[in-house]
């Protein structure tokens, strides 16, 4: 199983975002480095859930936020490594909606938020067969600045 190292400051941003936006889904980008398969997320950047309609069950990231994320990575010598979002009152398992537009290479970090509190976090990557494979999330608590 692949491993995703998640620095604690990035985890804290994701967790706070999930709690703040509850009962709606939150979303954002993940930045860091992927060297020879060793993937470390050093930054999480929240963005607005641009989905029109019921944001308790859906999220969408606006194109201009995507452009900014790619530019941010290029300008800061980082890699855009994935996306996070929350599943309010649901487990952190990707849905058919998550799979429909999933991209290769990206890590899809999902946090389950139950009654406003982060319950658990899991991460997934699309494999060559077009299905999600889980990657182990290792929180790096020694990276606090």
């Amino acid at each position, binding site marked *: 199983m692949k491993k995703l190292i998640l620095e604690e400051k990035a985890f804290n941003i994701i967790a706070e975002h999930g709690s703040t936006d509850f*009962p709606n*889904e939150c*979303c954002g980008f993940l930045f860091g480095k992927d060297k020879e398969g060793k993937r470390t997320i050093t930054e999480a950047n929240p963005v607005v859930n641009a*989905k029109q309609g019921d944001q*308790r*069950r*859906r*999220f*969408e*990231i606006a*194109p*201009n936020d*995507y*452009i900014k994320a*790619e*530019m941010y*990575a*290029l300008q800061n010598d980082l*890699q*855009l*490594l994935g*996306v996070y*979002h929350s*599943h*309010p*009152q*649901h487990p952190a398992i*990707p*849905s*058919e*909606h*998550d799979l*429909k*537009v*999933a*991209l*290769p*290479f*990206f890590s*899809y970090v999902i946090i389950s938020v139950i009654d406003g509190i982060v319950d658990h976090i899991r991460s997934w990557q699309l494999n060559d067969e077009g299905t999600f494979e889980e990657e182990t999330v290792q929180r790096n608590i020694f990276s606090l600045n």
Partner: protein
Amino acid sequence: MAQIIIPTPLRKYTEEQAVFTTDQPTVELAINELVNKFPALKTQVIDNSGKLRSFIKVFIGEEDIRGLGGEQATIGDKDVVSLIPAIAGGVSVSLN
């Protein structure tokens, strides 16, 4: 020359190249030049009818080309063209 920003997930099809420069005058010609240089990218961006895939948006600067004439939109020397994959999802069943 104009720049095309390749989305990170598709860079494995462009030999990890993030930015492609072009002096083509329209989006259509620029993307054709890009996929001709990197043939493996073509099916990721273009559908069987030769049009851009529905889940890929193209922006010039911060503007969607759909409001600029679509694939015939003109691009200038200093324009930045972004290929933008759809990013969306959500839980699978009703909360109620």
